[in-house]
C-alpha cells in the first residue's frame, strides 16, 4: 500500500471515522483504523463493534493495499501538520510510514484481515430523509436518552416508522422527548427500532444543515445511514421500548404560557442557590405570575418572579433545573407552553404552536 493525499482531504475523512473509536478497547485492533487504498480512492473505517463508520476520499494511489494503523496517533499527526501538506502513507519494513513535508513517522500496524468489519444486512427498509430534518429530529430528542441505564432499552433513541409518520422518542425515565415528522414512507407494517445512544450522538455530530438527502436502511438487527461519502452502520438495541404513549399524560389542567428566554434566565439565576447535587427548583404557578424558588443546605435562598399567561388554579411543583434547561434548549419557539398536574405527577412542555414536539418532565419531591 502506498498513496499520497492532501491533508485537507485526509483530515476531514479521519475526523469522520475517529468519533466511534473508543479510547479503551476490548480488542487492540479496534484502536486502529482500517485503511484500504484501491483504484483512485482510499477508504477509512473505524469501529467499536457496535457502530462502524466508513468514509472515502480521492488519493493518488501508487500501490494498492490495505492495513490498520493506530487511529488517534494518525489523527494527531495529520492535525498537527501544516495546512495544505501532502501526506504519503506506505508500508515499509514492518512499519506504516507516514511522510509529510520534512517529517517522517513510522507507525506500528496490524494486518487488515483481523479488522472486524460489520456486514451489511439484506432486506432492510430503505427511505430518504432531508439531512436538516434528521438533524432536527435528533436534536429534539437526543438529550433525553439514558446513558448506561440498567433498563438497557432506554439507552438509545426509539424510532417508529409508519406509512406517513416518522416518530422519534427518547427517555431516561426522568424526562421524555418525542418528535414527529410527517413524511410519506410507503411502508406497509409499522417498524420500530432502538438506535444506541453512541450512534445517535455520533450521527448528530456528523449531520449538517443541508437539503441533501440521507438514506436510512433499517434492518432487523442493524441500521445503515448513508450520507455523502460516509456510511454509518450500527447495531440496534435488542429490546422492547416501553409504551411511551402511556406515560404522556392527557387531560391536563390549564396551560401556562411563558417567555422561553425569560424563564431560562430566571432558572439559571435561581439554580445558583439550589442544592448542588439535586438541583431542584420549585415552580409555583399563580394567576399571571410564576414564582421560582431554590434553596441549598446552607439555607441560602433564591426567589424569582416571571409574568406569565396563566389563569388556572395555583399549582406548585419542583423540577431538576437541568431537565428544564434541556427542554428549553430543544424548543425553537419563543414561547413555551407548560401543562402540569398536582401530586408530583408528570408535566408536558412544548414550544407554542409546535405540535410536532412533546416533552414530558417528571418532577422532584422536595
Amino acid at each position, binding site marked *: 500500500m502506498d498513496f499520497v493525499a492532501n491533508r485537507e482531504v485526509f483530515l476531514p475523512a479521519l475526523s469522520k471515522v475517529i468519533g466511534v473509536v473508543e479510547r479503551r478497547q476490548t480488542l487492540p485492533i479496534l484502536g486502529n483504523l482500517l485503511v484500504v487504498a484501491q483504484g483512485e480512492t482510499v477508504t477509512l473505517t473505524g469501529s467499536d463493534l457496535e457502530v462502524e463508520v466508513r468514509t472515502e476520499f480521492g488519493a493518488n494511489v501508487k500501490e494498492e493495499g490495505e492495513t490498520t494503523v493506530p487511529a488517534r496517533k494518525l489523527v494527531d499527526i495529520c492535525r498537527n501538520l501544516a495546512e495544505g501538506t501532502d501526506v504519503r502513507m506506505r508500508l515499509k519494513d514492518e512499519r506504516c510510514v507516514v511522510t509529510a513535508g520534512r517529517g517522517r513517522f513510522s507507525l506500528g500496524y496490524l494486518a487488515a484481515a483481523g479488522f472486524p468489519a460489520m456486514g451489511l444486512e439484506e432486506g432492510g427498509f430503505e427511505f430518504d430523509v432531508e439531512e436538516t430534518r434528521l438533524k432536527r429530529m435528533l436534536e429534539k430528542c437526543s438529550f433525553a436518552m439514558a446513558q448506561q441505564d*440498567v*433498563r438497557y432499552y432506554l439507552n438509545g433513541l426509539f424510532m417508529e416508522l409508519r406509512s406517513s409518520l416518522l416518530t422519534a422518542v427518547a*427517555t431516561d*425515565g*426522568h424526562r*421524555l422527548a418525542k418528535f414527529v415528522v410527517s413524511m410519506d414512507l410507503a411502508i406497509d407494517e409499522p417498524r420500530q427500532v432502538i438506535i444506541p445512544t453512541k450512534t445517535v450522538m455520533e450521527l448528530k455530530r456528523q449531520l449538517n444543515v443541508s437539503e441533501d438527502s440521507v438514506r436510512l436502511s433499517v434492518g432487523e438487527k442493524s441500521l445503515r445511514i448513508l450520507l455523502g461519502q460516509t456510511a454509518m452502520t450500527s447495531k440496534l438495541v435488542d429490546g422492547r421500548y*416501553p409504551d411511551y404513549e402511556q*406515560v404522556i399524560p392527557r387531560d391536563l389542567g390549564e396551560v401556562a404560557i411563558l417567555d422561553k428566554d425569560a424563564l431560562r434566565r430566571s432558572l439559571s439565576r435561581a439554580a445558583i442557590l439550589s*442544592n448542588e*447535587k*439535586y438541583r*431542584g427548583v420549585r415552580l409555583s404557578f399563580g394567576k399571571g405570575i410564576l414564582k421560582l424558588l431554590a434553596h441549598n*443546605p446552607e439555607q441560602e435562598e433564591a426567589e424569582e418572579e416571571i409574568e406569565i399567561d396563566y389563569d388556572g388554579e395555583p399549582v406548585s411543583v*419542583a423540577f*431538576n433545573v437541568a431537565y428544564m434547561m434541556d427542554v428549553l434548549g430543544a424548543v425553537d419557539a419563543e414561547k413555551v407552553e407548560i401543562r402540569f398536574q398536582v*401530586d*408530583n*405527577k*408528570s408535566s408536558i412542555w412544548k414550544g407554542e404552536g409546535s405540535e410536532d414536539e412533546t416533552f*414530558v418532565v*417528571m*418532577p*422532584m*419531591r*422536595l
Partner: protein
Amino acid sequence: MSRLILHVDLDAFYASVEQRDHPEWRGRPLVVGAEPGQRGVVATCSYEARRFGVHSAMPIAQAVRRLPPETIYVRPSMARYAKVSQQVMGVLETVSPVVERVSIDEAYLDVSGLTSLVGPPAIIGAQVKARIRQAVGLTASVGIGPNRLIAKLASDVQKPDGLTVVPPEQVGDFLAPMPFTVLRGIGVKTAPRLERLGVKTIGDVRQLPLETLRQHLGARTGIQVYQQARGLADDRIDPARPRQSISRETTFPEDVSDPRILEETLRWAAQEVGSIARQTRHLGRVVTLKIRFHPFETHTRSRTLKVPTADDAALFGAAWSLFAAEPWSGRPVRLIGLGISGWSATDGGVQMDLFETAAPEPCPEHDRLAATLDAIRNRFGADAIQRGLSRRSPG
C-alpha cells in the same frame, strides 16, 4: 497536638431501656432477644443476667439453661430503642458539634477543643454521662483517649457506668497488659498465628518487629497491628459518616417452609426497618433479603429501587420479589430478614420516574399513614397495630 476523642457506649442498651420502662424488672436478670424454647440468640442482656455468664449472641437455649427462673425474657422493640438512641445522640450534640454515631448505642465525639471551655477530660466525660442520665435515665460508659482505638478500649475498662481517661503519655502502659485480641484486624483466623509465636498481650506484640507481623498477618493487617500496639490509630471523627444500613432478621424456632409464615415474617421485618428508617430520616435505595437454610447456608440478594424509600410495603415488596425470584420455594428456612442501605439524602429531593409508578409511590397520604402507625406503635407497643393481609382460603 494530639486530639481528644471520647467514646460513649450505652450500658446493656436494650435491656436498660426495658428496665427503665418497667420498674418491676429492675434488679432482675433480663434478656432481650429470641423467645425461650425457640431458636435465636440473645440480643442484649442486663448486668444481672451477665453475672450468670450470659452474653450477646449466645443461643437463647444456652442462656435459659444458665439463668434462674425469675429471669425476664422480652422480644426487642427496635422502634422504641431507636427513639431513645435518637435522644441520646441529640444530647451528645449539645456537648460537642463533632459527633459520629457508629451504632444504635455507640458514638464517638471529638472533644479536643473543649478543655479550655469545660475543663479537664474527666470533667467532660462526667458531663456527658450526667446529661445522658438526665435526658433518658440511662447509664453510659465513657472512654477518653488520643484516638478512636484508645477511647473505645477505655470505655470498655469499667463497665457499667464507667469513666476512663487515658492521657497520651499513659497509652503505652494502658495497652501493654491487654490481650492482643482486642486490636482491630485480629480475628479467629489471625489470632492463632500470633499465639504460636508466644504472643499474649499487646505488650508482647510490641516486641515483634514489623517484618514478623507482616509475614504472619499480611502487609496491611501487619502494619495496622504494629501501629495499634503502639497506640497509633485513627483520630478522625466524621459526623457525616452515616450508618451503612438498617436491618432486621429473625431466627425461627423451627425451620419454616410455609411461604405464608415467611411472608408474615418479612412483613414484620419490613415494618421494623421502615420504622427505624423513618425515625432516623433515612431513605434507602437498596433492599437486601437475607435467608439462611438448614443448617447454616446463608444467602443474600439485593435489589436497587428507582425511588428511595422508607416505606414498609415497598421494603416488603422488594424483598418478597427477591425471594420469589429464586428456586427456594419449599426449602426449610432457618432465618429470614431484610435490610435497607444505599441512602439517598432526604433533604435534596427525590426525582420521580416515569416508569416506576408501580414501585414505592411516596405520596403524602402514604407518609402520613406510616407516621400515624409509628406513633401508635411508639405509644402502645410494636404489636398494637399491624397492616392487614388478605388471605384467601385455599383452593
